[in-house]
């Protein structure tokens, strides 16, 4: 290959592209600045701002409530970390049970459909209340009987019903030709699911899965309704004694700080998979 130097016309075009790029960066910056300054100004100059600032954004109250909220938040994190793997396993099982075609698996399929229909219909907070207060009263042998355990189970049961449907959508979005070529290679249906369909399906549903998990991190706050000392309960406790709502803002920030890195992390994984599997396709 001979050495190539760009022609004058190409250099001219590159300069033009660079100018266009700089112009669009400038427009983006100016538009963003104008927008956020206008919103900020409207907020700060509104008549009630001093009161709102004192009740919702008080630095002293934020500092005072911080340790209790941080300790409570650990409970939310624990709930989330324990619930997430359980939900993934149970949900995938439910989705596969729903997809099962073998005749002798029919009861399993019926059970899966009934489970999903029922638990998606019941409000999660009711499930938390019913399980956390009702189950320990049964005095079951061989399972933990604490509030924490049953609140965790309520979240797992409710979310696995949602997530199962996400998995099912992913499985059904894989083109039938994939199943046909797995069949043609002599794979059993279970093998086709295990090695061909599910791996593709899971990759495809990562964004909606993440959506559900962010939702789950927030719904761990529902356990505050059964007097478990999580971050929201701590904040409510402080608010009730001090008549200041700043702790609620603090709790919100805790949740945001937890969920934003999760979102960025999945974006990164998605982009990497896209680059590998769709190189050059347009």
């Amino acid at each position, binding site marked *: *290959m001979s050495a*190539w130097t*760009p*022609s004058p*016309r*190409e250099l001219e*075009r590159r300069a*033009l*592209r660079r100018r*266009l790029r700089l112009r669009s960066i400038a427009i983006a910056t100016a538009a963003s600045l104008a927008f956020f300054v206008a919103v900020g100004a409207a907020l700060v100059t509104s008549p009630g701002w001093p009161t709102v600032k004192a009740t919702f954004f008080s630095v002293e109250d934020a500092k005072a409530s911080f340790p209790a909220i941080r300790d409570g938040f650990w409970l939310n994190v624990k709930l989330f970390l324990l619930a997430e793997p359980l939900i993934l396993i149970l949900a995938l099982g439910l989705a596969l049970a729903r997809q099962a075609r073998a005749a002798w698996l029919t009861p399993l399929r019926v059970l899966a459909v009934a489970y999903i229909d029922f638990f998606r219909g019941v409000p999660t907070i009711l499930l938390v209340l019913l399980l956390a207060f009702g189950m320990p009263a049964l005095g079951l042998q061989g399972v933990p009987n604490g509030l924490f355990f049953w609140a965790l189970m309520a979240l797992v049961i409710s979310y696995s019903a949602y997530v199962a449907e996400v998995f099912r959508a992913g499985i059904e979005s894989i083109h039938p030709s994939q199943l046909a070529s797995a069949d043609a290679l002599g794979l059993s249906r279970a093998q086709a699911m295990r090695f061909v369909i599910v791996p593709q399906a899971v990759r495809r549903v990562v964004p909606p899965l993440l959506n559900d998990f962010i939702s789950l991190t927030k719904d761990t706050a529902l356990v505050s309704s059964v007097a478990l000392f999580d971050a929201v309960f701590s904040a409510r406790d402080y608010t009730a004694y001090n008549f200041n709502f700043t702790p609620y803002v603090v709790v919100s920030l805790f949740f945001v700080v937890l969920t934003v890195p999760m979102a960025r992390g999945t974006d990164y994984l998605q982009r990497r998979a896209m680059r590998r599997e769709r190189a*050059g396709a*347009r």
Partner: protein
Amino acid sequence: MTGSGADLPAAGTPLLEVLDVRKSYGERLVLDDVSLRVQPHDVICLIGSSGSGKSTLLRCLDLLEEIDDGVIRLDGREISDPLVDQREVRGRIGMVFQAYNLFPHLSVLDNCTLAPRRVHGLSRPEAEERARDLLATFGLVDHVDKHPDRLSGGQQQRVALVRALCTRPDLLLLDEITAALDPELVGEVLTIVRDLAERGTTMILATHEMSFAREVATSVCFLSEGRILEQGPPAEIFSQPREERTRRFLRRVLPPSG
């Protein structure tokens, strides 16, 4: 009268002019100083082995890829300029892909009326009339309301051709449109292309169908390693190729004669 027409394209300005176009993907050079002139009613066939740059050239012409150097002019106006409205250019160029690329969620008719209605501002009845006429001409009258997946490959590719023609493009780019078809379906698609050629449609097509190229092309380009190694009328290219590499390629793809 002289002078007043200085800005207008002079008579004989090619419809499309490609000058020293270069395109690389990372380290790999795909088009290397490619130049080509296309006059109205020309049918240019691009031949050459896979990876010789035929598809990339077509994609560059439709501005689907940004070129690294060189100039592309349509009717004398440079369309490789970053300030050019790409959508307007594509409104004048039709493109058909190897894998049809029909929209699976739209019926055949809606596939064909989408661009005329949304890009070219035709009313629904006008667009549908035009689409129905063309679909009927190409023997697809029974499939107007079906969805693409219900059709055979040959039928789908004919729909893709109609979809491209519905916008009345000045230039039609066909990217190996028979490569994904069964041999017995290739004929029905090529018949249409031959028809279009006879009606004076300006076309550039990348193809592996050598006998078709010999019969229909006004000019054949042999591409090798991103260069147009040889260009000429089909009689010349297929009978007395100048280059050794062209000869070797043709020996491989043409059935032994005699």
